[in-house]
């Protein structure tokens, strides 16, 4: 009885934690399918560019996927999400919304005010709102304390060089 209760709670937590219903994806490039979400983990299979995948969940920079070649983890940046399978009840962003409790990802904006180029061009300076924004400013110290509350630790990390040849 008690155990069952826990399972329900865990399932709830899993959804709230950003997991989603299965979504289709495609391997963008050849990459290794790993047994766990890190580079040193055992290689389960090798994915080729264009391989179809089912994305089960995300952890950091990794997707847990199922493919014809096996199941495992592949780096997020080696996968393009989307191209939902036909007949799949959930697809794309709508599918994600279904799996993410409380975020209410409604992107339709019909009848709701947007913010387009014209709005920005014709905008008039709003001193009162700006003062409000400036009043919300947080000091470096306050921010550091806020980070410490969640055990966020600053680390050293170099900036990334621009890719050679600027990409494609």
């Amino acid at each position, binding site marked *: 009885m008690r155990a069952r209760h826990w399972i329900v709670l865990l399932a709830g937590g899993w959804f709230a934690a950003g997991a989603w219903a299965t979504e289709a994806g495609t391997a963008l490039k050849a990459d290794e399918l790993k047994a766990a979400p890190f580079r040193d983990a055992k290689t389960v299979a090798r994915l080729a560019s264009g391989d179809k995948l089912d994305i089960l969940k995300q952890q*950091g920079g990794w997707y847990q996927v199922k493919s014809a070649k096996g199941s495992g983890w592949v780096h997020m940046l080696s996968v393009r999400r989307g191209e939902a399978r036909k007949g799949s009840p959930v697809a794309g962003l709508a599918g994600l919304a279904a799996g993410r409790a409380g975020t209410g990802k409604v992107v339709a904006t019909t009848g709701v005010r947007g913010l387009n180029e014209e709005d920005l061009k014709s905008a008039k300076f709003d001193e009162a709102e700006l003062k409000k924004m400036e009043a919300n400013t947080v000091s470096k110290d306050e921010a550091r304390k806020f980070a410490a509350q969640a055990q966020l630790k600053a680390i050293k990390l170099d900036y990334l060089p621009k890719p050679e040849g600027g990409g494609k």
Partner: protein
Amino acid sequence: MMRHILCVALMLCVLPAQAFNLGKELEKQLGGDKPAGGLSLGGYSQEEEIAIGRQIAGNILGAAPLAKDDKLQQYVNRVGRWVASQSERPDLPWHFGVIDTNDINAFAAPGGYVFVTKGLYRQLNSEAELAGVLGHEIGHVIRKHHLKILQKSQLIELGGKLLSKQAGDNANVQKLIGTGAEISARALDKDAEFEADRIAVVLAGRAGYDPFGLPSVLQDIAQVSKDEGSVALLFKTHPHPNDRLDQLGQAIGDRLDRVKGKDLEKRLYRIK
């Protein structure tokens, strides 16, 4: 004499910078590495930078006011200031705000003003994703991407005039930035966007977050149809999220494999 040469060089720079090595060189020199407060090559002092940013920020708020949720605004300022503290300009007076529109977008103005729309905020699943989004805008600020546009389009040195009126609606600054907040509706060059993406993952990682927050958000936005009104301006002014992911993938390679950051899904403040 020297000044004359610089003037000519700057005029050349008005043409697409990519076309000239000289343009590239100048861009480097105009970069954000100068000491704060220093004036060089027609650049702006930090005070002027803030005055320009303040005018743009006030105009953006004229187009869309702050979301009426003090806890949300405080939360975003805490996360934003912590991420900005990992940059080379930790002491700018950083201000962050969520603006009340369902459009999916984010904006930066010089001097440390950063905006996220409520529409984009609603897409977020974790504090690490918020850190990534803010990191991208912080990247624009620290590399002075908008100031560079102004420097290229305005060869006139306004100098001290910019500061003639510190607070309130500043007519001189407004003259410099054009109509309203149109500068925020203008596209920066693609390289500036890719650079801001690279900075975002690193600043988030330095702050102790999972660096893949921004790529996750980009993966989400890539799923939104181009025809969807809420992303129209974002897609018009930025490379497609898939191109940004592609560029990030090339830049990251295995460089962030050892970084074990936090997602903080539970701490993300949820809009009611």
